[in-house]
């Protein structure tokens, strides 16, 4: 969990080792915290706007406004903290980030921020395209395994020289060969108790 909410002190504590988060991640966590049994006893933490579609896979950027005295506070340490993916505003005296010893915070804001969905040529978003690729790869594997099972069940098999050989439906193309063993682990063709694929 990247955030811990201190309702008494109106602080959104960023938990180590998180050093960077997006405005989308922040507002998602805020809404989840507000709906808890503890959160509903307090006024809402933030307002958010943006994500209106501008067409062509472009949307208005996100702005998260922390209400009242709410601030984000990073864990103490010597590092550069980043808040990206939109505008974070609000807080006491317009300062949405509380002081943390040793931490330098990069807060990049834009009056015309946008969200652009990267096209992969398939007409799908990048994440959708990745998902489709993964599914396609799995289908290929399933197809290969299914064909093997079909061949095992649909073709000739024979036992010769202490081995069992399976063929495709053409009864000619070998697809698998197994060594046969008896209960003592000796090669056999008669008292077969186990097989090992070659």
């Amino acid at each position, binding site marked *: 969990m990247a955030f811990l909410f201190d309702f008494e002190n109106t602080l959104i504590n960023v938990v180590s080792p998180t050093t960077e988060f997006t405005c989308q991640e922040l507002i998602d966590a805020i809404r989840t915290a*507000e709906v808890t*049994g503890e959160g*509903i006893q307090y006024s809402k933490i933030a307002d958010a*706007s943006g994500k209106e579609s501008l067409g062509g896979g472009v949307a208005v950027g*996100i702005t998260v406004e922390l209400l009242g005295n709410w601030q984000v506070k990073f864990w103490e340490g010597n590092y550069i903290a980043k808040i990206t993916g939109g505008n974070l505003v609000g807080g006491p005296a317009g300062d949405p980030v509380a002081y943390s010893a040793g931490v330098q915070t990069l807060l990049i804001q834009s009056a015309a921020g946008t969200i652009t969905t990267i096209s992969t040529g398939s007409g799908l978003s990048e994440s959708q395209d990745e998902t489709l690729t993964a599914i396609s790869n799995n289908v290929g594997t399933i197809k290969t395994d299914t064909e093997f099972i079909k061949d095992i069940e649909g073709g000739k098999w024979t036992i010769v020289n202490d081995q069992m050989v399976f063929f495709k439906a053409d009864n000619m193309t070998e697809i698998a060969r197994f060594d046969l063993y008896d209960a003592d682990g000796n090669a056999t063709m008669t008292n077969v108790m186990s097989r090992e694929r070659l």
Partner: protein
Amino acid sequence: MSQLFIGNTGAGIIIDPSPGSAKLMPFGTISYGKVRQPTDPFFYANIELQNIITGTRYWIAQASDLSNVLASGTASGTTVNLSSIPAYANPMLIEVRLRSASGEPKYKPYKTYGYLVKSGVTVYCAQVLDTVAN
């Protein structure tokens, strides 16, 4: 010596004019009743929340004293009926908070008010979709 006497049907002072005798001087009929304490509710009434999104967490408190929570819970349907809610003013302004962000779709935090009177109060909710939070 005179003594105060209180019985089932009356009260008075027993006068002892002379040793071995007594005479009751009645006050008359005394009625007994329950007195409302300053911290007791003025009355009890019902609260109804209508058009609430199923699964929404609700929280209701006295608006002038938010530490006085009147009711809280999760809506199992689109209407929530709360009975025998104590009212400490007549009428009493209540604050209603609704939060729904656990499932899909998500809704923005919602707050509204109503006056609780002896006949109750009905709050019609108008939660707004949250188009920013995922």
